[in-house]
Every structure is written in structure tokens, then in C-alpha cells.
């Protein structure tokens, strides 16, 4: 694929979004995915790494990935210029159970740069063709600081819409920040959305997940209606190379999306 557009998302310059377009038109047509799936992106000579797809299937023609600069491959992806070619394998994994969400309310809870596949999910359901499939769509999104929020322009657009209830919060505000200040689990407690007929989709750093699950329990969300997307060190992405398993399930092939009922049955090594 070719990097069509690349831009830095956050003030710490650690997150960069790449918009990729296919080299061949037939590949663009054949590439079908659902929100929550991921791809292996590769830079020749540097290697391959998995990334959640941040664009929605409704946004035709290109794919979007937001990449945290952390290791060899991600640093290479940060240094590539627009027009550069990169390799892609995918889509991989199961994705969010969008069919289950039909006719229900959906509560999306995201933290930090794990917001990428959640953005895909939200953009998918905000598409005119899909919005009717859901009832209420509530989004709680938090970052440590205002400058670390992803997709800032889009968040502003969503705030103006009436078909999505968006709550953006930061751990520490700055002089220009007029929005909420508070940790995601606390904001969830404060907003206290009803669990009736509602699915919760949660994705964020382990510390956020750890404190958010109990709050969802208090709100009486049943385990089967809490979904999360896991991350593991991966290589092949198709359940062969071994490393990403939790119990007998592979995060790459059987996940990365699991509900809390499934996770409770697995060994606690995640």
C-alpha cells in the first residue's frame, strides 16, 4: 500500500496517523473488514507489527492506522514519508460483534491511544446507512492530557451531533481545556448509563480496564454484554506462531475482541 497522507496526532508527537491507499484497484475492492479487526503492517528490512484498523469500512478507498512510536517497526512507520510503500496483511481477527449490537444501546469507553478501533466502530455506526441499526450511542473517551487526545477535529464534530452522546475527559487539564477533568472510571460512575438493553465496548490501558470493569458491574452490565479488545505480542496473526494465546484461545485468531464472560474462564496471564 502507499502512504497517501500522514500526520502527527498528539502534542508529544508519539502518535502518527497514516492513511493508506491500495496499489491495485482490485485489492481495494476485495479488502473487506469489520470494525475491531487488525492488520500486520510491514516495512522491508524492519519487520512486521500488528495494528488495529482505525478507519471504518464505510470510508471507502483507504485505510487508516494510528501508530504509537514504541519499537523498531513503529519508529520506521513514523519516519516514512507520504508516497512511501509499505506491506500489509489482513484483515485479521474477529472484530466487534456488530450484528449483536443491532437494536441495542451501545456504550463505548476508550482510553488513550487504544481509541483507534473504537473510532472505527463509532464512525461505522454514525454512517447514515448504519445509524438506525443502533438506539443510543454513548461514548466516554479519556486521555491523560488534552494534547494526547486522538482525532481532535472529529471529536468536535461528534460533539455537535445529536445522534451521539460524547463525553471527553482528561486526567489533567491545561489552561485552554474547558471540558471534563477526571479519570474514565469516575466519569462512568458519574454518568451512570443504564445497562438495560445496552452493550459496553471498552478499550484502553490495563489500569483503566481494571478500574472500569467493577463500575460496569455496579451498573449491572452482565459479563456477556461487556466487550473488550486485547493486545498481545504477535507475529503471524493467524494462530500458528504460538505466542499470543491466553489459555487455549489465540488473541490474533479467536480475538482480539472478547466478552468478559469469556475472559473470566481464561487463565489470568493478560
Amino acid at each position, binding site marked *: 500500500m502507499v502512504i497517501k497522507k500522514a500526520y502527527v496526532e498528539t502534542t508529544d508527537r508519539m502518535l502518527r496517523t497514516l492513511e493508506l491507499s491500495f496499489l491495485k484497484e482490485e485489492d481495494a475492492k476485495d479488502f473487506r473488514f469489520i470494525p475491531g479487526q487488525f492488520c500486520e503492517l510491514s516495512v522491508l528490512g524492519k519487520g512486521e507489527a500488528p495494528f488495529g484498523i482505525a478507519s471504518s469500512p464505510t470510508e471507502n478507498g483507504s485505510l487508516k492506522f494510528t501508530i504509537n512510536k514504541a519499537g523498531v517497526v513503529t519508529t520506521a512507520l513514523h519516519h516514512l514519508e507520504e508516497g512511501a510503500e509499505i506491506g500489509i496483511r489482513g484483515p485479521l481477527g474477529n472484530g466487534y460483534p456488530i450484528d449483536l449490537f443491532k437494536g441495542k444501546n451501545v456504550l463505548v469507553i476508550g482510553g488513550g491511544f487504544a481509541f483507534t478501533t473504537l473510532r472505527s466502530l463509532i464512525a461505522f455506526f454514525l454512517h447514515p446507512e448504519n445509524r438506525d441499526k443502533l438506539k443510543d450511542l454513548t461514548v466516554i473517551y479519556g486521555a491523560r492530557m488534552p494534547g494526547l487526545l486522538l482525532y481532535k477535529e472529529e471529536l468536535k464534530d461528534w460533539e455537535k451531533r445529536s445522534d451521539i452522546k460524547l463525553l471527553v475527559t482528561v486526567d489533567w487539564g491545561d489552561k485552554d481545556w474547558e471540558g471534563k477533568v477526571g479519570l474514565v472510571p469516575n466519569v462512568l460512575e458519574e454518568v451512570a448509563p443504564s445497562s438495560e438493553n445496552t452493550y459496553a465496548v471498552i478499550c484502553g490501558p490495563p489500569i483503566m480496564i481494571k478500574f472500569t470493569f467493577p463500575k460496569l458491574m455496579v451498573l449491572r452490565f452482565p459479563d456477556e454484554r461487556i466487550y473488550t479488545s486485547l493486545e498481545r505480542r504477535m507475529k503471524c496473526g493467524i494462530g500458528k506462531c504460538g*505466542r499470543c494465546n491466553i489459555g*487455549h484461545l489465540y488473541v490474533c*485468531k479467536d480475538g482480539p475482541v472478547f466478552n468478559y464472560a469469556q475472559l473470566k474462564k481464561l*487463565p489470568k496471564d493478560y
Partner: protein
Amino acid sequence: MKLKLNKKDFKPFLQSLIEEYDLFAPVQLVEGVSVFKKIDHPDEVDLSTPNPQKPAKELFFPQSETMFRYEKAGEKNKMTSTEEVKRERILFGARPCDIEAISIIEKVFVGEECTDVYFFEKRKKTTIIGLGCNHPLSTCFCSSAGGDPFLRAGSDLFFIDLGEAYFVELLTEKGMVFHKNKFFKEADSKDLTFVKELEEKAFEKVGYSIPVDGIEKRLNLMGESLFWDRVHEICMGCRICTYLCPTCHCFDIVDEDEHQTGQRVRNWDSCLSSLYSLETSGHNPRPTTRERTHQRLMHKFNYYPKHFGQVACVGCGRCILYCPVHFDIRQAILWTSSKRPRGLEGGMI
């Protein structure tokens, strides 16, 4: 079809194979160290070692394997795939445990959803000639793990050493190709009786004393028990058990770059390595040998059986023979089956 091959015809037979196929067989590298290697001359073949150190999985899943080569050329990168196997191959002299292990790996690599082309291409172009184990070692426990020293499953032809000759069975379509081979003679009833004797002797030696049966369920019930706190204690994470294990199949993928050209390579990897599951963030879901030993044993005896209905251990005993600290997987299996594990208080030693 029951045939035999006289020992004096053995080398000419191997030579005839070399002419038509790429032949792989046990070769002694230095005294006491033998591996499966491509054979250019029949004299290289050495069947004196009971079972080569490196298992036959290497023929299908090499220790290091190029997945493709690349050439960076400005905008247009050139990629050359490397999975094709040009010549039909023969694996000669693999023991039943190694052959069973290949089918265990095959179940993962040749799945319903995605097929590993590198493995599959080699597998489908290989005829397997198995060799019965007349003299199993004290570390062998194949019969307990669902196999036996003369298990034919997976072999296309099967050889049994009768002393003066090899008893030969043609078992599959690939094996039947050899039914008119000029070196094979008809076997007689005396040979059949002798085969029976050899089998019985070997069975007796291997025995059925290791309780592999039902281990999947026992591990389900054990949960986070004391067993896991103690069983890993002596392991120092050298990983040799996983590399030499004929069923272990984890791999890592890396790019080997030489400026404008290079290759993507996959290498054997091991769940006992601390780097195996270490994430770039610094988080490691399996931070100590406790979690890593848990993964090794659970994958073999609980997770793999959940998917494929059999354990991922063939009882070849290599992990026992070559472990520098004498971690004995048989002991671990025994502990899972006793209520108050004898000796568990003292760990593995």
C-alpha cells in the same frame, strides 16, 4: 504388502533413492550428535544413534527459514517467494514418535482457515519411511503418550531391522510406488514371527507407566495449584527442551536487511524465553519461569488437546535427555495424577 530388504542391498537401495529423490536421513555430525540431513552418498547414513538429537520436524519446519527475499528499488520493491520445493523428497529412518509429531504440527499449520504454504509444500512432496524402534531408551514413554515403538501411522513405508535384513511394509499410495522395487524380496512367515518378537520386547521395555491419559481434565481441575508454584523451580529457561521437542512449533519472524536487499526469515522460538511474550511497552504477561512453564505444559497437555483431541507430546524423551538441570516431564505428568504428590514438597530434585 510384506517385503524385505537384505542388508547387502541397503546401500544400493539408498543410492537408487538419491538418484530419484532428495533423500534425508540421520547423519552423525560428531560422535554422539546426529541430525536429519540431505544425503549425497549412502555411506553418510548412520542409524546407530537411537534417535537423532534434532527431530525430523526440521525437514518441514526448519530452524531458520527464508519466507521471501526482497530487493528495494526506489518506488518499486521486488519480492521473490521461496516456498517452492522443486524435487520430491524422502525422509528415511525417522522413528514413529517423530513421525507422529509431524502430524501433530500439521494439524496446526495446515488448518481449515489458513494453510502455512512453507510447511505444506514440503509435507506434500515428502514420502516418509519410518523405522521401528527395537531398543527404546529408558527416557522413552511413547506408549504412554498414545504411540508405540512400532506405530505405522504417518509412515508411507515402514522398516524394521531384523539384523540381516529390513522387514518392509508399504502402507500408503505413496508407499505402493515401491511395490516393484528391484531390491525388495518377499518376506516369509519366519520374518513375521521375528517382527512380532521384536515388537513385544520393545513394548515391554517402554511400558505404560506414565499417566498421560486424562491429563487434560486433571489440569482443568488443578487451576492455580501448588503444582505450578513448584514444578518450574529448577527450570533456568535455556529452552533446549522446546527446540528439540518434535511437536513444538512456535516461531519468530524477523527481517534480515542488507541495505538494498534482504530477506524475511522465520526462526524457531520458545515459550520459555522471556522475550517470547515481552511487549514493546515493557509489559510481559508471562514474567517468570512459573508462567512460562505453565504455558509449556498447558499447551502440550491441555490447550492442544482442546483443539485437536490429543496431547502434543509423543514421549520421545528428548526434553528429559538433554535438559541441563534434569527437568523430567514424566515426573510433572505423574504429579498431576496423585493427590499428595510425592516429592513435590522438595520440587523436581
